Every structure is written in structure tokens, then in C-alpha cells.
């Protein structure tokens, strides 16, 4: 727990030095998650050894094969333990929100998912960067409960494995 707090504190204190070089990157990613295969895009801002940025995705199976849009947004913060010119590797934290309209006939047919992944990444390349990321963490699913006539929360554990490409400038 203490390690996690120190890690989060380091990330919060990231933008203290404005004189360091900032590297912007944008790209696309595909990630395997137990609930779907997510495809989307991301932005990252890297300053010194820290990076952060938003991502937006959609579940490919639900969206393309079941005509039910499964959107997901997240924000990634990371710390580069290895920070060479062509190879980087480090730790990441990624809170993610998603929702899925499961039952259209129901008054409350949505499922809401809130996840927090902790994991790592390894990246290769200078301008064109290819990265593998993976994470594990808790998932809180909220959905309407028939018997209780109210929203109920379900805590479980999820993971993801992701391949991404980004263009740095």
C-alpha cells in the first residue's frame, strides 16, 4: 500500500520541471481483456521519466459483431524505469471506465465497469514506437438488481494485454 502511495505521489508531482524535453505521442492500440477485445487510440505526454495521457476504445466483438457499442475511456500514467533512446520499459497505472447496454427491454439495462489496472510496459522505437503493456487489477461492475430493485456492485479481478503503435514528435 505504501509503495502504491509513493508511486502515485511521484506521478502527481511529475510536472514540476518545465524545462525538460516533452515528448508527445499519439497512436492506436488493440488490447485483450476478458470482456472483449478493445481497439482504440491514445495520446501520451512524456516528461523526464514520467508519462500520462488519455485513451479511448471500443469493444470490437460487442460493437462489430453484436451491433452494440461498447465504449471505454481511460487515463494512463507511467514511470520509465529504463529510458534509452530506442528502448523504454516501466510501470503503469490505468483507471478505466466502460459501459455496455446489455438489455434494451429493461428499464436499467446498462452495466457500468470501473477498473484500475497496475502493470508494466516495454516499448521499442524512436519515432514509430511499438509497445506491449499488461496490467491486472480490480473491476467494479455496477448494474441494476432485479430482486433488490436497486443498483448493486460486483467486485472481481480483471487483466489486459495490449499491443500499441504510436508516433512520437
Amino acid at each position, binding site marked *: 500500500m505504501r509503495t502504491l502511495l509513493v508511486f502515485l505521489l511521484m506521478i502527481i508531482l511529475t510536472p514540476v520541471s518545465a524545462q525538460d524535453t516533452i515528448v508527445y505521442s499519439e497512436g492506436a492500440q488493440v488490447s485483450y481483456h*476478458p*470482456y*472483449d477485445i478493445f481497439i482504440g487510440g491514445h495520446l501520451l505526454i512524456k516528461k523526464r521519466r514520467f508519462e500520462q495521457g488519455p485513451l479511448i476504445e471500443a469493444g470490437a*466483438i*460487442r*460493437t462489430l*459483431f*453484436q*451491433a*452494440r*457499442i461498447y465504449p471505454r475511456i481511460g487515463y494512463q500514467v507511467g514511470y520509465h524505469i529504463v529510458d534509452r533512446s530506442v528502448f523504454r520499459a516501466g510501470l503503469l497505472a490505468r483507471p478505466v471506465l466502460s459501459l*455496455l447496454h*446489455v*438489455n*434494451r*427491454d*429493461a428499464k*436499467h*439495462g446498462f*452495466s457500468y465497469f470501473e477498473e484500475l489496472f497496475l502493470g508494466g510496459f516495454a516499448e521499442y522505437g524512436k519515432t514509430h514506437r511499438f509497445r506491449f503493456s499488461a496490467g491486472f487489477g480490480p*473491476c467494479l*461492475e455496477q*448494474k*441494476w*438488481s*432485479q*430482486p*433488490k430493485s436497486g443498483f*448493486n456492485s*460486483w467486485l*472481481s*479481478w480483471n487483466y489486459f494485454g495490449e499491443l500499441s503503435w504510436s508516433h512520437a514528435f
Partner: protein
Amino acid sequence: MRFSLLIVLALLAFSCRKKKYEDVKIIGHAGSGLVVTNAPYHDNSLESITYALETEGVSGVEIDIQCSESGTAWLFHDPQLGEATNGSGCINSSTDDYLSGLHYATTQKEALTRLKELDFPFDNQELFLDMRTYNECEAKNVDQQQTITAIANALNGVPSSQIIVITNRPEWIHNFYLMGWTVYFEVSEVGDYLTSSYKQETVGTCMRNSAVSAEDVQSVQSEGKKMMLFDARSPKGIRSVLKKHPDYFLADDIKATLIEKY
């Protein structure tokens, strides 16, 4: 840009499609799914069953029943405990004390569940008991009378007509029938059911989706019997089940199934 707009319009058009599968009841297979990655909890766990029953659109759950050496009905699918838990051996050869200390080998570590722990009867939802009848540790069939006693004790006070069992053992059908229970006979081919002498003591049959055509479903239903299908996990497989219009579908991917139905 124009291409993206077309894709969005196509998705909206598909998403407005009216589906006509109201006659198919969705039942959570082994709770909220068996051998499926997107079930949040292990099959046959209390969490998995509650999760399914609290999902709008789910009409009930199917669970797997095995009888312990102590004569108690437990929920467990696999032949050996070591395949899914931190224990070893078989349910049939284990005491209640031993089983009470076990949990599934998952991150959540869900405990093994007794049948009597379920809050049954449910409100407007059904419970299907799938009988596991072979003791792999001792290489012998389990005793039906012991199983009947275990279920009757666990569901004490539940009207017999609300106890629904599924069995693939034809010689077990008659004794279940005598108990006043609702019996489904699981077979591998529809002809095995339609020509069975036990058919009159059952209300229907349970079959793997890949072995059944829409005509098979109709032939069973035309005799006043019900058809229950299972084993379809992909969106395409789930659609193929719904198009056959069985009375029940044992769904492994509950969310995907509800999306297809509604």
C-alpha cells in the same frame, strides 16, 4: 470521414433491429457461465449464481449437483476437486468438513457452495439441478437414493413441482418422477429422446446446440415437450440457438446472450 459515417449509420441500423426471441428463456449455465472468460466468478459459486439471478432478463440458473460422502448436496461441475479448487479427490469421496474448507483456485477464492445455501425458491426464477452421477475417484456410479435424499433435505419445504432436475441417466428418471420432480432427460441425439420409453415421465430434453436443428426443436415441441439447449458461446453460436426457438437456453456468456435476445 464519409466511410466512418457509413459505419456508424450501419451500426445504428443494426442496433434498431427488432429481435423476436421472447419465447426463449435465458438460464445462467452453472451460475453465470461455464468455461467462459468473461464470467466474473467461478461456475457454481454462490457469487456466480447471485450475479446471474440479479441480471435483468435471466429467467433462472442451472447448477451442477454432486453428493458428498456425508450425504450433502454440493454444487460442483468437475469430476475431481483438484481441477478447480485447492483440494483433491472427489466430492463423492469427501466429507462436508473437508469441503467446507475448500475454495476455487481463482483470484476471488470463492468458497464451494452447498445446495441448501441457495435462497430457493427464487422470485419468478427457476433452478435447474444437473445431476453429476459418476464418482471418478472410486470408478463407480453414485447412489441415486443418496442423491435424492440430499436434494430433498437441502430443499426441504420447496414444493416438489418446483424442483427441476436434468439427468443423462435414463434409469434415474423414474425415481425422480416418483418424487414429483420435473425431469429433463439429457441426450446426444433428438431421436434418442423421442423414441425413449422414459419420455412420458419427463417434461423435456436437454441437448448440445451443435447436435440440434430447428426442425428437431419443433419435433420435440410438437409432442408437448420442452427443449433446452446449451454450449454456444460466440455471438454467432448464440444467434444460432435463438433462431431455433428452444424453450430454454443455458447461456455461458450472459451479457452476449441478452444483447442478442434484446
